[in-house]
């Protein structure tokens, strides 16, 4: 098996202001040729340090690293590597095409071949029309695209991409993802470092999670997510308590996410039935995705420390209690409103009734008086 990156017991300690900071602690990593490897971790975990070690920008304190079978940072290794940095670090006083020509000449490409590749790459990233403009006038997204064009210049066997979709609009992000997929189909190995977990989940064949300088997990994506095409995960919101109760009655396993939505895992055949059940009871299905869980949850589980987990539990409990209090309060208010409404209606009815009775009494009284008057009149007439 051929490996594009082989790191053995790789460590790096920085010395700043008299202190020693262990940025990377015995990293052991082997990335197979032809795959897309996702490298994720929180800020300060050691991702950038690892990338710098692979590129030979810094020297390891201990351990070894080989890239494409050659020592990291050697010209032989760098010949077939393309690198896209997180932030654009290019000379802004030159035009895009001219600057690419300089880099191409460093890669020992002939002038004709260089021009051909440059035009091809610029077209691929959508910068061909602006090739004669200085980089000073480029936006962040355009500089990112320029970086991709540069990384692809020497027909690399390995691409190291640090946040490739950073600064790009949704169309740009899709284009970059499509480029990555196309490159993988050509057999190019890709090392992708990103904070965008959904992007990593969709693109990568394997994922490595690093935290506080240590590699805490390194598996194929299918192993990570216990991937089963026939099983789906459904996320539900609204009327969570009612629906949870219903699911419990039907013996459907359910759990609550950190944002208090419900999550359940079910076979694909049951989806229509559950969908109906949820919607009939006032709930809303947020999403239905294949496989168990998602990378984000696994990431938080692995990366969040124990104290934070406990704090999170307490926070969840508190949130639950707050929600319950709110609901109780709301119910009480609804009840009070109902009662007030009812009282008002009763009062109104009473008044109406009273008015009616008064009216009736008045009419009766009037009738009586009229009758009396008539009677008196008759008597007088008789006397006369």
């Amino acid at each position, binding site marked *: 098996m051929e490996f594009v990156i082989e790191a053995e017991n790789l460590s790096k300690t920085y010395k700043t202001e008299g202190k020693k900071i262990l940025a990377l602690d015995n990293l052991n990593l082997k990335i197979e040729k032809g795959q897309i490897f996702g490298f994720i971790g929180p800020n300060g975990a050691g991702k950038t340090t690892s990338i*710098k070690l692979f*590129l*030979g*920008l*810094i*020297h390891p304190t201990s351990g070894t690293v080989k890239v494409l079978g050659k020592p990291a*940072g050697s*010209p*032989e290794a*760098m*010949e077939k*590597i393309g*690198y896209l*940095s997180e*932030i654009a*670090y*290019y*000379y802004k*006083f*030159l035009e895009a095409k001219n600057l690419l020509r*300089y*880099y191409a*000449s*460093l*890669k*020992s490409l002939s002038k004709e071949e260089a021009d051909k590749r440059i035009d091809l790459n610029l077209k691929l990233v959508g910068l061909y029309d602006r090739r004669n403009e200085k980089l000073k006038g480029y936006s962040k997204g355009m500089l990112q695209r320029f970086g991709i064009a*540069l990384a692809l210049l*020497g027909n690399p066997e390995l691409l190291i991409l640090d946040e490739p979709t950073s600064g790009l609009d949704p169309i740009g992000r899709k284009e970059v993802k499509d480029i990555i997929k196309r490159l993988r189909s050509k057999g190019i190995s890709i090392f992708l470092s990103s904070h965008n977990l959904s992007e990593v989940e969709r693109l990568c064949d394997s994922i490595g999670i690093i935290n506080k300088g240590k590699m805490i997990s390194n598996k194929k994506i299918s192993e990570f997510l216990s991937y089963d095409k026939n099983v789906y995960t459904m996320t539900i919101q609204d009327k969570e308590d009612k629906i949870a109760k219903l699911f419990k009655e039907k013996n459907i396993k359910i759990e609550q996410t950190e944002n208090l939505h419900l999550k359940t895992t079910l076979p694909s055949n049951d989806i229509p039935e559950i969908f109906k059940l949820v919607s009939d009871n006032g709930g809303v299905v947020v999403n239905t995705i294949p496989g168990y869980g998602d990378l984000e949850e696994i990431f938080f589980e692995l990366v969040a420390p124990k104290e934070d987990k406990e704090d999170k539990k307490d926070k969840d409990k508190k949130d639950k209690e707050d929600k319950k209090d709110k609901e109780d309060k709301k119910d009480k208010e609804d009840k009070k409103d109902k009662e007030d409404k009812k009282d008002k209606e009763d009062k109104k009815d009473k008044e109406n009734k009273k008015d009616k009775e008064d009216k009736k009494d008045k009419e009766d009284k009037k009738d009586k008086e009229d009758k009396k008057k008539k009677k008196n009149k008759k008597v007088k007439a008789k006397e006369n």
Partner: protein
Amino acid sequence: MKNIKQALIIAQLTIEENIRKKILYILLFLSFALIAFSASFTSFDLGAQVTIMKDISLSGIALFGIVLTLSLFLNVIPKEIETKTIYPFITQPITRGTYITGKYIGLMSIIAVNLLILGLELMVVMKIYSDNWNVMIINSIILNILQCGIIGGLMLLFSLFTSYPLTLSITLFLYILGGVSTPYIQYLQGRLPKVLLDFVVFIKLIIPKFDCFNIKDAVVHMNALPQGYFAWATIYGLAYVIITVMIATILFEKKDL
């Protein structure tokens, strides 16, 4: 061969980058003006006027060269590391030595061209005033260029592991130390503690003797240089340039970017 080609490409890019710096043109203009101004000393007889012109102009050119060298070389590598514009180069298939050599060649090319332009200007002025090209001016300019080359190499070397003010202080100190002659040193011999003396002796043995590159008074007074002096001074200067750039390369290879 490949490394040389790559170094020249880096040099070309360095020239393109630095040729946009305004300080270059300000200093060049000032030096031009100084040479032209020196021609305005008409209160002396022609012979004396020519001597004064050459003296002032050659001093001005030497000073211009040193100031330009200090300003160009002061933060050439540290700035690239700070702004991270070095990353797209170091991640190409070139060695760090090739990169630093290319940077050096690029900056020295700018300095050399500027000094030669000023030298040519002085020669033209000399031709006008004394009907003599004074070709020795070129010899003086070439040795000035070598002197600037050594100063540049030292700045490049020290900038890799010290801050800007310290780089400047150390380089200036070494330049002054290298330029001071023997009788003065002998005069001060008994006047300082032995420890300090020994330390400075050691440094004086290692650093270049910058006064070897100063043939201004020979040019001004039209004295003949000793036979072989110019050739050996050139070789001596090149030797120091090569060794300082080599040491800078070794240090740069070990540096974390």
